[in-house]
C-alpha cells in the first residue's frame, strides 16, 4: 500500500507542473500584456493599478524569470492582493503591523463551496443509488423507462434556467424558500438552531441545482454497472448455490457495481467546482464560484489566477483521495494487478 501511495503521490508532480504552465500561458494570452487588456476593459484602471499588476507578475522581467516567479507564487500559495476589493489578500489572511487580521477572499469563500458540494454529493448518493438499482432490476419496465427519461431530461436541462424557474416558483410565487444569499435578515439574532435551519433553507435550491446533473449521471452509471455485474458468472454461481435474491443483489452485485463509483466521484470534482459558478451567481451565494465570476467581470486578475490554481489543486487532491480509496477498497489495485 505504501508503495502505491508513494507512486501515486509522485505522479502528481508532472500534473502540477502542467497546471502551472497552462495557467502561465493563460496570463499571457491577452494581446499585448495583461496590463493593456486591463485598461481596455476597465476604464477605471489607473496607471497606478497597472503598475501594480506589472509588479505583481514582474512583467518587465524575461519570460522565464516570470514563469519562475509564478511557480514560486503557486508553491507558496501567495497570489497577492485583490485589485477590486480594497487590497484584500486573495488566498489567506494577513496581519498588518497593528495586528489587525484581514481575511483572505478564498479563505472565506472555499468553506461555503465545499459545504454545498458535500451536501450535493450526499444528495446524489441518497437519490442516485436507489434510482440506479431499481432501474437495473426492473430493466425495460415502466420504472426503468421513467428513470431513464428523468436522466435524459436532467442531462439536457440548463441548470441556470431550472434555477431561475425554481427560484421564481418557490421563492417569488409561493415564498416557500429564500432566493438569495445564505442568511435572512435578522439571522444573527436567532439561536444557533434556527440559524442552522435558516442557512439550510437557503441551501436547498443551490444544492439541488448543483447536484442534479451529477445525480442523473451517477444513477445511469449505477444502472449500467449493475446490469453488467448481474450478467457475470459469480452472480450465476451465487444464485445457483441458492442464495436469496436480496443477498445476491445487495451482497454480491451492488458491492461490485459500486467500486468504480469511487473513481467517478473523483472525476466529477472539477465539474462540481466549475459548476458552482452558475448556481452561486444566480443565488448570490458568496462561495468560490461567485467570487470567480465577480473577478472575471472586474478583470481582477490576482483573484482569477488564485482561484484557477486552488480549483485545480482541489481537483488533484480529490482525484488522489478517490484513487487511494479505490486502492483501499479493491485489493487488485493496491497489489498492482490492475495497473
Amino acid at each position, binding site marked *: 500500500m505504501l508503495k502505491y501511495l508513494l507512486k501515486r503521490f509522485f505522479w502528481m508532480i508532472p500534473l502540477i507542473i502542467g497546471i502551472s504552465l497552462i495557467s502561465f500561458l493563460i496570463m499571457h494570452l491577452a494581446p499585448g500584456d495583461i496590463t493593456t487588456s486591463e485598461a481596455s476593459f476597465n476604464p477605471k484602471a489607473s496607471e497606478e493599478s497597472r503598475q501594480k499588476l506589472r509588479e505583481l507578475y514582474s512583467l518587465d522581467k524575461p519570460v522565464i524569470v516570470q514563469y519562475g516567479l509564478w511557480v514560486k507564487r503557486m508553491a507558496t500559495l501567495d497570489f497577492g492582493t485583490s485589485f477590486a476589493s480594497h487590497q484584500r489578500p486573495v488566498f489567506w489572511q494577513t496581519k498588518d503591523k497593528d495586528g489587525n487580521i484581514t481575511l483572505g477572499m478564498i479563505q472565506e469563500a472555499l468553506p461555503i463551496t465545499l459545504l454545498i458540494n458535500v451536501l450535493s454529493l450526499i444528495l446524489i448518493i441518497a437519490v442516485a443509488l436507489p434510482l440506479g438499482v431499481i432501474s437495473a432490476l426492473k430493466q425495460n419496465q415502466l420504472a426503468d423507462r421513467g428513470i431513464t427519461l428523468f436522466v435524459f431530461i436532467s442531462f439536457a436541462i440548463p441548470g441556470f434556467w431550472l434555477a431561475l424557474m425554481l427560484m421564481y416558483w418557490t421563492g417569488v410565487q409561493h415564498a416557500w424558500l429564500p432566493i438569495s444569499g445564505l442568511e435572512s435578515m435578522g439571522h444573527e439574532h436567532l439561536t444557533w438552531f434556527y440559524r442552522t435551519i435558516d442557512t439550510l433553507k437557503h441551501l436547498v435550491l443551490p444544492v439541488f441545482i448543483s447536484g442534479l446533473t451529477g445525480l442523473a449521471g451517477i444513477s445511469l452509471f449505477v444502472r449500467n454497472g449493475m446490469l453488467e455485474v448481474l450478467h457475470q458468472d459469480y452472480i450465476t454461481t451465487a444464485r445457483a448455490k441458492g442464495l436469496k435474491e436480496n443477498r445476491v443483489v445487495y451482497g454480491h452485485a451492488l458491492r461490485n457495481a459500486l467500486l468504480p463509483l469511487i473513481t467517478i466521484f473523483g472525476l466529477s470534482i472539477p465539474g462540481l467546482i*466549475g459548476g458552482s459558478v452558475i448556481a452561486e451567481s444566480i443565488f448570490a451565494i458568496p462561495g468560490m464560484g461567485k467570487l470567480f465570476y465577480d*473577478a472575471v467581470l472586474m478583470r481582477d486578475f490576482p483573484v482569477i489566477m488564485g482561484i484557477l490554481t486552488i480549483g485545480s489543486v482541489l481537483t488533484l487532491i480529490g482525484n488522489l483521495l478517490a484513487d487511494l480509496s479505490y486502492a483501499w477498497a479493491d485489493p487488485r489495485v493496491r497489489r498492482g494487478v490492475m495497473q
Partner: protein
Amino acid sequence: MNKVLHNPLALIGFVIIAGILFLALIAPLIAPYDPDAINVKAILLSPSANHLMGTDGLGRDVFTRMLYGSRISLMVGFVAVGIATAIGIILGAIAGFYRGWVDTVIMRVVDVMLSIPTFFLILAVIAFLTPSIWNIMIVIGLTSWMGVTRLVRAEFLSLRNREFVLAAQALGAKDARLIFTHLLPNSLTPIIVSSILGIASAVLVESGLSFLGLGVQAPQASWGNILTDGKEYIQFAWWLSLFPGLAILITVLGYNLFGDGLRDAYNPRTSQH
C-alpha cells in the same frame, strides 16, 4: 443507420435535430420581424397571434430572436466541436499510432487539462480576451478535446496490431496511409458519437456563458442571452424565460438521444442486453 432509426428514442432525437437545423437555416424566410428592431409600442406583450412568443423589454419579437438565436447557438456548438474533434483526432492518432514517449506526453497533457475545472478555465481565458462569438467557439473547442483524444487513442491502440493493418504495413504502406485509410475510417463511429454528444454540451456551455453575460454579446441574439433578459422581467413576462430554456432543453435532449442511440446501435455489448 437503419439500426439507429429503428430505435424510437434515437429517431426522436434525429427528428429534433433535423427540425431545429431546418428552422435555423430558413430563419430569415420565416421570421416575421427584424430580430433587432426595437418597437416601443410593443414592449413586453404576452404571446399572441402577432407575436407567437411575445415581445421583450425593447419590444423585439421573441419568436424572431429565438429563430436567429438558434443559428448562433448551433453554430457555436458545431464550430467548437469541430475544433475539439480535429485536435482530438490529431493528438489521439499520434499517441495511439506511435506510442512510446509521444503517447506519454500527450496523455499527461490530457490529464493536466482534465484537472483544471473546465468552466473556470473557460471563464479565465475569456477574462483575458474579449467575450465574442468567435472567442467563445475557440475557447470551448480548446477546452473540450480531451475526451476525443482518449477515444481515438484507445481505438488506434486496439486496431494497430490487427491483421489488416499489419498486412497493409507489410505491403509497404506509409504511416500516413495506414492512419488515414485504415485506422481512422475504422474508428469513425465512436468519434461521430462523441461529436454529437459534444454538440449537446457545447450548446449548454455557450448558453450558460451567454446567460452570465460572458458569451454572445447583445444585440446579437442567442438562447442564453435572451434568458438573461428574461431574468430581469421574470415577474411580469414568463415567456421571456420559458421559451429559450425549453429550446435549449429540447435541442440538447435531441443530440443526446441521437448520440446515445447511435452508440447503442454500434456497440455490440450494449445492444445485447
